[in-house]
């Protein structure tokens, strides 16, 4: 049975179900329970994460399985790597993806490479949940979208959901995957509502979701930008252009076929990705299509990304920083060769 719940509630439910299903699933991170050793906390007064995403889990599963950590990302993320390799199935929360600077070694040189370096004789069933995304007025060190860094590193799987239903199914798949997964949550999506099935289900990795079908133009969009793409597609429809909107859902592995098949049909591609442009996922998908999909292409491949600058604090600037439906429309107009597409 599906109900309408928030993105945040969908994630909470996924963790709850996973922890019920398998006692080896633990959750650790800064304030994921909250108020450790504070004895006057009542009911759900404990924080449950800085945005409340893990609220209530400590009540059900106790402080042995929902562990508050010191501010020591290298320490507890690194610990989660071997906790995974020695028999647990940890969900480690890296509060903001921007804090990867404090624990990249544990992710890049340990988690990602352990299995390979050991000749396949170990596995690392670790999920790192982390918040990303601009638009929250959180400035340069709390607003990045760093999934490209992780996608560059072999040995990691990278997930970026765009809807509550996907978030739940992908998080459950991540937790029960035997490889290290970095799971990105856009902080500005937490309150977004959507239909979500009750109970346990997983969404397999490497299967893109076609969020909207169309024959004239392919738009591949990442995370929250799926919604930017859908908005643009709705306006395009009014102007007689049917855009297909593809949400890869997992960046590593990437569903190359769905993207290539779509471009084979439409001949045109725009990638919408709010990360910085250089060596980005937008560039990666462009490169894929410029190689394997070259013969399908009728027009240049366009990328709508952030500019090559840090995320500015001022709302006035941050709004200019992010992709918008208008930017997508402008690119569409250019590659379709029809200026009338852009709204005036």
């Amino acid at each position, binding site marked *: 049975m599906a109900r309408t719940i928030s993105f945040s509630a969908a994630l909470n439910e996924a963790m709850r179900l996973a922890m019920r299903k398998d006692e080896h699933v633990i959750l650790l991170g800064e304030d994921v329970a909250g108020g*450790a050793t504070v004895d006057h906390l009542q009911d759900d007064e*404990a924080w449950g994460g800085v945005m409340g995403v893990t609220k209530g889990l400590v009540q059900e599963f106790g402080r042995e399985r929902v562990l508050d950590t*010191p501010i*020591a990302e290298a320490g507890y993320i690194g610990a989660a790597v071997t906790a995974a390799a020695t028999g647990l199935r940890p969900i480690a929360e890296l509060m903001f993806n921007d804090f990867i600077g*404090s624990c990249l070694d544990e992710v890049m040189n340990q988690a990602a490479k352990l299995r390979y370096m050991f000749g396949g004789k170990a596995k690392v069933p670790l999920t790192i949940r982390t918040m990303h995304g601009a638009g929250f007025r959180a*400035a340069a*060190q709390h607003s990045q979208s760093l999934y490209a860094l992780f996608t560059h590193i072999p040995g990691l799987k990278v997930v970026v959901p765009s809807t509550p239903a996907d978030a739940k199914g992908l998080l459950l798949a991540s937790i029960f995957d035997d490889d290290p997964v970095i799971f990105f949550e856009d902080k500005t999506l937490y309150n977004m509502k959507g239909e979500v099935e009750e109970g346990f289900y997983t969404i397999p990795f490497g299967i893109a979701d076609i969020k909207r079908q169309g024959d004239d133009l392919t738009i591949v969009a990442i995370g929250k930008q799926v919604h930017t793409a859908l908005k643009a597609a709705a306006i395009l429809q009014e102007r007689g252009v049917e855009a297909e909107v593809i949400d890869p859902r997992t960046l590593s592995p990437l569903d190359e076929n769905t993207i290539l098949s779509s471009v084979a049909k439409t001949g045109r591609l725009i990638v919408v990705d709010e990360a910085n442009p250089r060596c980005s996922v937008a560039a990666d998908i462009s490169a894929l299509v410029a190689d394997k999909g070259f013969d399908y292409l009728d027009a240049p491949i366009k990328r709508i990304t952030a500019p090559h600058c840090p995320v500015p604090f*001022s709302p006035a600037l941050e709004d200019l920083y992010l992709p918008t439906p208008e930017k997508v429309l402008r690119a569409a107009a250019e590659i379709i060769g029809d200026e009338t597409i852009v709204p005036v």
Partner: protein
Amino acid sequence: MAVARSQSIVLTKEKAKWMYQKMQEIRQFEDKVHEIFSRGVLPGFVHLYAGEEAVAVGVCAHLTEKDYITSTHRGHGHCIAKECDVNGMMAEIYGKATGLCKGKGGSMHIADVSKGMLGANGIVGGGFPLAVGAGLTAKLKKTGSVAVCFFGDGANNHGTFHEGINLAAIWKLPVIFVAENNGYAESTPFEYASSCRNIADRAAAYNIPGEVVDGKDVIAVYEAAKRAIERARNGEGPTLIECKTYRNYGHFEGDAQTYKSLEEKQKHLQELDAIVKFREYLLVNQLCSEQELAEIEQSVAKAIEKAVEFAENSPFPTEEDLLRDVYVSY
């Protein structure tokens, strides 16, 4: 470790007034930001320093523009104590083009290098290495400057604490590490997250002096900082000072603070206020008259009002600012 309390010392009248004024500026600035934030006007994350004024002011009372400080996500107090312009600060928090950082940094990155204020920092523990770098410049260029690293009890468990203090110690750099132990990192108590009883106990691991100070007693902080800064200026290397303090507001604006107990909150807000205490001290020791103090309070109130006005009337940055200053060149 015993908690050092203030002994009788002689503050000049001028210094005393400066300190009282700065404490007032911080408190009133933060109370105002709190009020504006709760009206939904201000964007972003805001972490208020109210309650901890004695730390920033007691330390910075010894510094000049040529000395450096590194700060934290809770940086407004350090900014004010380091004599940054409150108009520019308020405008920055509003995201205006007239802000100290032209609106690009916001509350968490507020900075004024020309005042030696090397920035608030959104990264917990980010300041340790940065303070070491400023100390290295001071030592190599023989400027006589010192660098002060303010950090929280939460930051004390981050790897950069260890790397930064060890570096400063082996290179005998003029750096003072000032822990602001307000008992919590977000909702996590210091006692849970830290295996040490006092942060200052960790100084021994680096063979440097460590001292615990009542962080609500501005004179005690002032005295401890004096010793440490003298040591630093004399080339004797770093010191670790731990100030036991408390934050009057939540971790950030919007925090329900369920992890604090009622008694604890009342005790700190009512009995242990650093400004109330210092005010009494100034009167009892006849360093300031009631009238002088009232004048300071009022003039600060005016200055803060003016800062809000300035911020509100200032323009936002515009499109051409977006890509400006990513690099010096290109």
